[in-house]
């Protein structure tokens, strides 16, 4: 299947690849919403609850909740559970702080399509934060299975649902 390409603004340079975790309602930055030492999303009511962010490409509309948002991502990163990259519909200060603190590639402020309407959890993504380009390999439709297997093993050091 031909990959889909989205163009935005490169917010943090570098290239990262991984499977998408799409969070249409974002992730609450409040204490306890994201596990500081295991990188697991615990926020009650979140569609991504139980997912581990380690090695993933996080796809978010922006941040929400406490201004402590970035600190919990930084804590998870220091514990060994950093996301590989970020795709953010529109930049804001909470998520900007997280990106600079983790120093991981990010693309934001998309010109054409909202990535939330194109991407699904499980899609394979390349984030080129230097040039502001996102390349998407969709998972196989209807099966819930990915249509590629490359780099699948060892991509996530997390303990649960990685």
């Amino acid at each position, binding site marked *: 299947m031909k990959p889909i390409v989205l163009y935005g*603004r490169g*917010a*943090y340079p570098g290239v990262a690849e991984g499977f998408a975790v799409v969070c249409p309602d*974002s992730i*609450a930055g*409040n*204490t*306890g*919403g994201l596990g*500081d*030492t295991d990188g697991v999303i*615990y*926020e*009650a009511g979140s569609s991504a609850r139980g997912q581990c962010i380690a090695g993933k490409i996080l796809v978010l*509309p*922006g*941040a*929400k*909740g*406490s*201004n*402590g*948002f*970035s*600190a*919990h991502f*930084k*804590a998870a990163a*220091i*514990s060994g559970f950093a996301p590989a990259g970020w795709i953010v*519909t*529109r*930049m*804001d*200060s*909470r998520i*900007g*702080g*997280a*990106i*600079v*603190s983790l*120093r991981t590639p*990010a693309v934001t*402020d998309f010109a054409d399509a909202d990535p939330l309407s194109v991407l699904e959890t499980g899609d394979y993504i390349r984030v080129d934060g230097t040039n502001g380009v996102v390349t998407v390999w969709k998972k196989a439709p209807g099966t819930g299975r990915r249509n590629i297997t490359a780099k699948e093993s060892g991509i996530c050091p997390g303990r649960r649902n990685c």
Partner: protein
Amino acid sequence: MLRLTEYEQAMLEGGFGPFRQAAMRVICDYAQVLGAKELCTVRRATLFIGAHHYLDAFSPEEDYTRIFSEFYLNREEPIPFDRMAPECAAQTCAAAADLDDWEATHLGEAFVRRNNAWLGAASGVGVSIVNSCTPYYAGWVPLQGEHFVTNESSNTLMSNSVFGAYGNADGVETAVCAAITGRTPKWGMHVKENRRGDVLFRVETDPADAYDWDLLGYTVGRYLPPHGKPVLSGISRRPDVNMLRQCFSSLASTSAAEICHIAGLTPEARDVPDALGGLAPRRTVTITGREIAQSLAMLCDAGEGPVDLVSVGCPHLSLEELRDLAWALEGKAVATGTDFWIWTDYATQHMAARSGYVAAIEKAGAKVLNSSCPLVMRERSHRQYRAMVLNGAKQAHNIRAQTDAAVYFGDLRACVRAALRGAWEGGSR
């Protein structure tokens, strides 16, 4: 492309020492991530630092200078502490523990001592120990047009919306670096043109007290689209600062709002057109009793039953609320087997003690605590409780990620009632 002044460039190149150089590197990277073209001068800061649980990845024995460097300055090697920017009044946000108690809150002496040691290191470089999520009660008030950073989301809303000061919802790391350098990216809420409201809320519920405003903020946040800047219209009764405190804390729990105009009340909202900058809103939402009732159902578990923890003071309570609690508890006794925690900052706690309120409250068996709250102290402080009553929607919303206990939500009178009876008997007010 980011433009720096000569002073900022010199700081980036190390002319003011390695501590400020490392922080300026982070601020410049932050500006690039945001897309800012220049920096602005920060006059006030509140920082969520100390032995907070986001530092649990580090060993308790780890050298705090190394922790500080890695976590806040993005540097692997320890950078020796130096002074914060003298032009910026920096102080601590809510802390990981009460300054003195480790028994009532179940945290243990070692943890509280470590928290105080790390707070002491912060005050050594010029971050005053205030430990408040309501810093305006103790004199932290940025003026109209003044640039600030704060890690307390309700304070971002209060300072932007009510004081007319300029600040974003900054993360801990970038706020620390802003306080060290006295600079932050001139972006977002720091730019006047970005501050106009764009989502109009027609409020039909006539909020009258802190409880009403708490539920209103929670509800507005539920309906606010991402990046929305709400304008509240239809407010007929003038709220006080305690009511707005509740509104902004819950609004920042269900949304990422950084500014909330209230037509006819807040300085950038003389009326609805003024708040919207003369433009049409991108969305209009009507808030009725139905939406408020839905919020209450989300915050307060159904049913009745015994409770073993009542905690009020999210955000931290004001002096006059401590007086009201002293009056409400006069001649009464908290039920055996129920802990009743009342949270404020320690400056207000001292004033309440001198005024006789603390003694009256504690005579009834409740406990006045400072600096923190169950949510910030996390599971160790509340894991033994099976049912809790809380007065803050922010607390009642977020504590659910930390506990399987029953969570009931009510106003201060309902909380007092539950503490005296040792039971939740329904009725949130």
